[in-house]
């Protein structure tokens, strides 16, 4: 094991050490504050290791893992999202009592799993990463086990994710049976060479099912609103961002060597799924009265949008997807962040019903403004990150000639606007008289959370107004180099 490999893997090593250290720490003395702080520090450390790793990138570490610019970019945003989740979770869990310390372990492990996925260049490491990311999620979803919602959501997710994993694995096994290798490059080559083979096609289709579930593409999206609603708000934020992004990032790497012209039937299926997600997600959200469910539906739609960019394949897709997810991460974390902070008060209730947001502009103007900004970003309004994300997706779609998919994207984006604006409208409505109760219960927001929201707000605006520096980094990513 060379020193270079250690440097390349340093983010993971730091994470793993941190997990063990925090676990030991908890064993010595339980302290929510300390665990949370240690977790944030761990994420900071992991982020700090990324430049170290970048120094030796691109580098293949064992046949399983590759550390290159693409992977590092994803690692950065995954760890950033993890850090944000940790900060939010602290406010959220603090008021709920119980034993919150282990939550951070799960979070860290899940992030490491997600990181492993984006660095994987072999199916084994991909699957390992996937499960390491997913299994802690079950625990996180049901972490507040006193209520029915969390347990129900966790169990639903567990059963369905298990089945989806089975689809993914079976599909991979079918491809393996024809290709004889589980290396991504090899598998991809084999899939191209055997593109006429029914077994390979069936395998790819089953992989698509498994991935579709994780991305909550229609028609595999049914679970999403339920689980997002049942999970604690910070966990929902984490799921909506990290678990989606990592899967798509890994998938993109898998398909990086495949020319877009092969597998027309698979592309058609994926396009249909993307279109169905865009339409179904947005339409579903129209009638929801729960903000978390709305955001869940919107995440279905966003998966569809980004799938259009994905369909372009290659570097264009990598850039579009990377930028899109960076923007989407910031906005989603910000939006769920506000929900989390509103839910972090004494009545231990999730403040996710639309009614909870009535008049928020009058009672909590800053939080409301942040939420509004995040929603506008998700809607793709200019001067926010989401707008350029959309521009990128459009450009990818146009360059790849995905005409009808782009058309659906336009239509769906328009529909999507309706529910984002509905939330904003509710927030501006005058609060009903006698609603003083909610003022009494207004949470005290920790300064860390304040800082986080400020950072996210700045990030969203910065990416919307002057994204050139970030884009320079993203354009430096070349997938097909290996």
């Amino acid at each position, binding site marked *: 094991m060379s020193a270079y490999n250690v440097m390349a893997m340093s983010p993971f090593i730091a994470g793993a050490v941190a997990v063990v250290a925090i676990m030991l720490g908890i064993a010595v003395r339980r302290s929510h504050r300390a665990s949370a702080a240690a977790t944030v520090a761990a994420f900071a450390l992991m982020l700090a290791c990324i430049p170290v790793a970048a120094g030796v990138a691109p580098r293949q570490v064992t046949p399983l893992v590759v550390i290159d610019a693409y992977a590092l970019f994803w690692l950065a945003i995954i760890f950033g999202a993890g850090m944000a989740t940790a900060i939010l979770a602290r406010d959220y869990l603090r008021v709920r009592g119980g034993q919150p310390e282990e939550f951070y372990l799960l979070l860290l492990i899940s992030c490491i799993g997600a990181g492993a996925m984006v660095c994987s260049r072999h199916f*084994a490491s991909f699957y390992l990463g996937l*499960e390491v990311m997913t299994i802690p999620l079950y625990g996180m979803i049901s972490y507040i086990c006193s209520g029915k919602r969390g347990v129900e959501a966790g169990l639903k997710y567990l*059963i369905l994710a298990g089945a989806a994993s089975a689809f993914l694995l079976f599909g991979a096994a079918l491809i393996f049976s024809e290709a004889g290798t589980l290396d991504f490059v090899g598998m991809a080559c084999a899939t191209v060479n055997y593109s006429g083979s029914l077994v390979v096609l069936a395998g790819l289709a089953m992989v698509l099912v498994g991935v579709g579930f994780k991305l909550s593409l229609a028609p595999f999206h049914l679970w999403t609103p339920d689980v997002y609603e049942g999970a604690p708000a910070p966990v929902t934020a984490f799921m909506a961002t990290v678990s989606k992004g990592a899967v798509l990032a890994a998938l993109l790497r898998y398909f990086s060597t495949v020319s877009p012209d092969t597998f027309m039937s698979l592309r058609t299926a994926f396009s249909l799924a993307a279109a169905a997600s865009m339409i179904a997600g947005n339409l579903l959200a129209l009638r929801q009265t729960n903000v978390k469910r709305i955001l869940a539906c919107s995440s279905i739609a966003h998966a569809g949008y980004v799938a259009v960019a994905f369909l372009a394949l290659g570097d264009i897709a990598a850039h579009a997807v990377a930028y899109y997810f960076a923007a989407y991460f910031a906005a989603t974390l910000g939006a769920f962040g506000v929900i989390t902070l509103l839910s972090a008060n004494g009545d231990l209730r999730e403040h996710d019903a639309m009614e909870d947001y009535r008049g928020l502009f009058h009672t909590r103007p800053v939080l409301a403004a942040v939420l509004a900004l995040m929603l506008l970003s998700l809607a793709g309004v200019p001067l926010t990150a989401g707008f350029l994300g959309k521009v990128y997706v459009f450009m990818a779609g146009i360059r790849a000639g995905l005409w009808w998919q782009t058309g659906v994207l336009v239509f769906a984006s328009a529909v999507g606007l309706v529910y984002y604006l509905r939330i904003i409208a509710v927030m501006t409505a005058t609060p009903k008289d006698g609603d003083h109760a909610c003022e009494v219960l207004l949470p005290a927001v920790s300064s860390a959370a304040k800082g986080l929201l400020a950072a996210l707000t700045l990030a969203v605006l910065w990416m919307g107004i002057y994204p050139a520096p970030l884009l320079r980094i993203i354009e430096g990513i070349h997938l097909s180099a290996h």
Partner: protein
Amino acid sequence: MMATVPTEYGMVLAAVLFCTGLVGLLVRRNVLFMLMSTEIMLNAAGLAFVVAGSRWHEPDGQIMFMIIVTMAGAEVAVGLALIMRFYHLFKTLDTDAADTLKG
């Protein structure tokens, strides 16, 4: 030894197992049985890996099988804990009863 078993046979068996698990998921309401069904599906996939690996004389298939079993075990561990919690809260193992989250 495995080489004597044709790949197709193994694959068909795996597919049958997979479908068994899938049908189990669809028809059983008891959450325990549903968990077991997912295990069957995962194991079917594992079997498929082993069969495929044996076709190419690659150890990868068997390694994948071991990873799958490990992960499935982890999943079952979490799953059982959740089922206990579930039973405690809902007083039943019928998943159809758990529809507080919907719409």
